[in-house]
């Protein structure tokens, strides 16, 4: 657990308060995070700090709590113990803080979750107009830029139901980006896609990573992990079992759980 990876100070709290530049570099600080679903202890003593512009891939067997962990970051799940600080804002019951954090954190879901009753363009402009109070014309301009960036500008006036899975997921990424977040969370973004469409989504994510976005990605795409991740985190039974640089993680896994997991997914 205490694998000292560059950028993760073991005592995050004191470091954060001692050095203001550290404070600025650090965009996510999670300490002693515990969460239960009923009586099921789903997250156990999670400590995690993420630096600005860092790309983290989280993997692990199903039920290991990896999705729950990133869903705690934008309060789609409520945690019971521990502290989460996002870019200086403490995540608590305070609705104002939750609003602030959700504006800074974008999320992409496994099932896309586009709004089926709105066109692609309306999907993209909705939150900027209603949450950021952006003028409609400006929101549309930004939306068209991001559609261009995810390479589907010609689909702006279609409904999500008329697009392929890969196109829908790219729209979903663009929708999050239109809010101009500082952090992007990806919850198994390619798991619901047909094999031939995975690459088009990963390409967009690689492009985003290269632009310097802070990213937390729950995925089993190990190619993506070794290509863009600064750090790979392996979770099992609600704990961070191992974290390391991609090359160390894949070539020199330390724990037996990690070795077993890697042998299972890489032998496919």
């Amino acid at each position: 657990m205490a694998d000292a990876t560059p950028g993760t100070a073991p005592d995050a709290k004191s470091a954060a308060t001692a050095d203001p530049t550290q404070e600025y570099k650090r965009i996510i600080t999670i300490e002693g995070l515990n969460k239960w679903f009923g009586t099921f202890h789903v997250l156990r003593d999670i400590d995690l700090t993420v630096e600005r512009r860092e790309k983290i891939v989280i993997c692990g067997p199903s039920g290991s709590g990896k999705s729950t962990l990133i869903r705690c970051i934008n309060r789609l799940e409520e945690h019971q113990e521990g502290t989460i600080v996002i870019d200086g804002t403490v995540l608590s019951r305070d609705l104002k803080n939750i609003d602030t954090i959700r504006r800074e954190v974008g999320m992409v879901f496994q099932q896309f979750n586009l709004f089926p009753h709105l066109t692609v363009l309306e999907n993209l402009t909705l939150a900027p107009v209603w949450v950021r109070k952006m003028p409609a014309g400006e929101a549309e301009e930004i939306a068209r830029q991001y559609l261009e960036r995810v390479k589907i500008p010609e689909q702006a006036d279609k409904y999500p139901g008329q697009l392929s899975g890969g196109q829908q997921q790219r729209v979903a990424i663009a929708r999050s980006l239109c809010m101009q977040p500082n952090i992007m969370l990806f919850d198994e973004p390619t798991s619901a896609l047909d094999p031939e469409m995975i690459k088009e989504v990963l390409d967009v994510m690689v492009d985003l990573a290269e632009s310097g976005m802070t990213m937390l990605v729950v995925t089993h795409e190990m190619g993506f992990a070794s290509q863009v991740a600064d750090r790979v985190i392996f979770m099992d039974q609600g704990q961070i079992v191992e974290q390391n640089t991609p090359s160390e993680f894949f070539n020199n896994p330390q724990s037996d759980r990690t070795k077993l997991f890697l042998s299972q997914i890489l032998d496919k």
Partner: protein
Amino acid sequence: MTARPFHRSQAEMLPERAAPVTTAGVVGWLRANLFSSWANTAFTLIALYLLWLIVPAIADWAYFNADTAGDDRFACKSSGACWAWVDQRIGQFLYGFYAPDQTWRVDLAVVLLIPALAPLLFEGVPFARQLRWFSLAYPVVATFLLVGGIGLEGIPTDKFGGFMLNLTVGLAGIVLSLPIGILLALGRRSRLPIIRILCVGFIEIVRGVPLITLLFVSNIILPIFLPPDVTVDSLIRVIVMVTAFASAYMAEVIRGGLQAIPRGQYEAAQALGLRYWQSMVLIILPQALKISIPGIVNTFIGLFKDTTLVIIIGLFDILGIGNAMVSNPDWLGLATEAYVFIAFFFFIACFSMSRYSIHLEKRLDTERRD
């Protein structure tokens, strides 16, 4: 590696071809839909035979052998229907006891309903933006026209009757019960226990009691609890009770729609930073209401037909007027004619709602492939 027997490698892709024409055209349609099998052919022939038996008989009764002139039922000599009363009574059937020289106000209110409803119901209506303001003002305009006031002769609501009473109560109930039903449905799913208990209580109590009972309560029991000098207009009492009754049903219909919306829609809205009411109004309700259209229209149609129950508290809607006429010595025994006439009005209103809901479902279908 040598080619196996199943080996095949296609150099060029097949071009697109037009659909076969055997299913097109009148003959094709007849063959596919009416004579596709022996059983289908038999049913077609039986249906044609029944139509041949029924339709001419109805036409003879209602039109060819009918009497249309006369001052009382004795003027009707032929074997068919007796429509002689229509001329004399149509005013009552439509306007009840509304002052005959003022009925133009009712007509005007009905005509104004068209520009008020058009921008809400249909797309591509010219001047839709301006007309929506008129839609908003319509209830006030219509109330002013019907009840009177500044400059217009005042007409007490107990003079309202006939089909205009059905329309007044029905439209008021429809316009009010939808938003109240939405609020009740959201309240029933609220995380705040007090709101939830209040909504569940209202829905279960109102839904568990017949509408007639509610009307009795409003008419007989409510005044007992009110101070003697406080009287609530009976038309308002009816509208309140009909609305309450329909809202309870509406709430459950809409709750069904809300439950059909995947959790991911709520989560996506939350993750984008939308507040509760924003995500409800912009994301959840548009989808939930679309799913609920058949149930909502069903409730509207039920509500509209229930407006005939106003007879319970002494108001004469079109059915009450019809009953009164049928028991009048001049027109005694013309129940069939009266009820067919009344049924025609209700059928037009309810069938229109039904067709509109189908149109709306098609318009809102975003899954279509263009």
